[in-house]
């Protein structure tokens, strides 16, 4: 039986155990070998995070490709926590940025 190193329970969280499981080809069993002398480190502010496709800490709009080209906007107040599309309106709630520390899109 072929076995592979895998991230236990496919949970992508800090300190999660790595175990040996039956090979299944799923992402949590796939690994890259990156040589230290070629590793560039994590992208810094203004640099592209190639895995996620965003420049770090560089504000951006998210524009729908539907005909009116509306922008993604956060609905305030925070209690609603909805995301909608609206015409460009210069509000900060239409500006987003990628945070390298959490790998999330912040508003």
């Amino acid at each position: 039986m072929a076995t592979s190193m895998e991230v236990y329970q496919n949970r992508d969280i800090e300190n999660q155990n790595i175990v040996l499981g039956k090979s299944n080809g799923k992402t949590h069993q796939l690994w890259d070998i990156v040589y230290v002398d070629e590793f560039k480190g994590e992208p810094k502010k203004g640099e592209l995070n190639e895995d996620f496709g965003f420049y770090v800490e560089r504000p951006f709009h998210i524009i729908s490709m539907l005909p009116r080209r509306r922008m993604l906007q956060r609905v305030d107040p925070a209690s609603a926590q909805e995301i909608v599309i609206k015409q460009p309106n210069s509000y900060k709630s239409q500006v987003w940025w990628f945070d390298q520390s959490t790998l999330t899109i912040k508003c």
Partner: protein
Amino acid sequence: MVRNTGYSLEAKSNNSLGYGSSRAHPTMQFRYEKGYLINVKTNKVFDVSGGKDVEAQKVIMWNKHNGANQRWRIVYVDQFKEQTKGLIEEFGLFANRPFYIRSRLPNRRMAECQGNHDVRQRKWRNNETGQQWVFDPVMKVIRSKKWNNRVLETSNRSNGLGNMRCYTPSARWW
């Protein structure tokens, strides 16, 4: 300079998209790939609900398909400039420059905005502004030259078919 509210986008239960306190969790992590915004855990993508291109329409998470309602463009603020003059290449129309929409049928009739909001083809008439249209580069709509508050619209039926109308956007007929 970025503004940090402490919130990040989040894929929530029941296919909804919202935001919450930032944390490095797969439900809050999305990658941008070939025009899709994809959740790293579920592979579901940002989706304009129902494909309705209307103001304040909700955005949800949905399984990926080829619809335009799932396609997005990332435009960095330092490069964003809304074009309001000249040829708007994305739409193939000049901004605020009146034009006719002329049929290629033998009689070469013009699309005309009628008083009852229908759009019909009619023979060209000099100075008939009902036959003239203007592309509005801000709203991304084609307006009637004669009735500036009316825009050229398609039916909102699910198959997209039906009569063309020239209608006031704030008073939709569907």
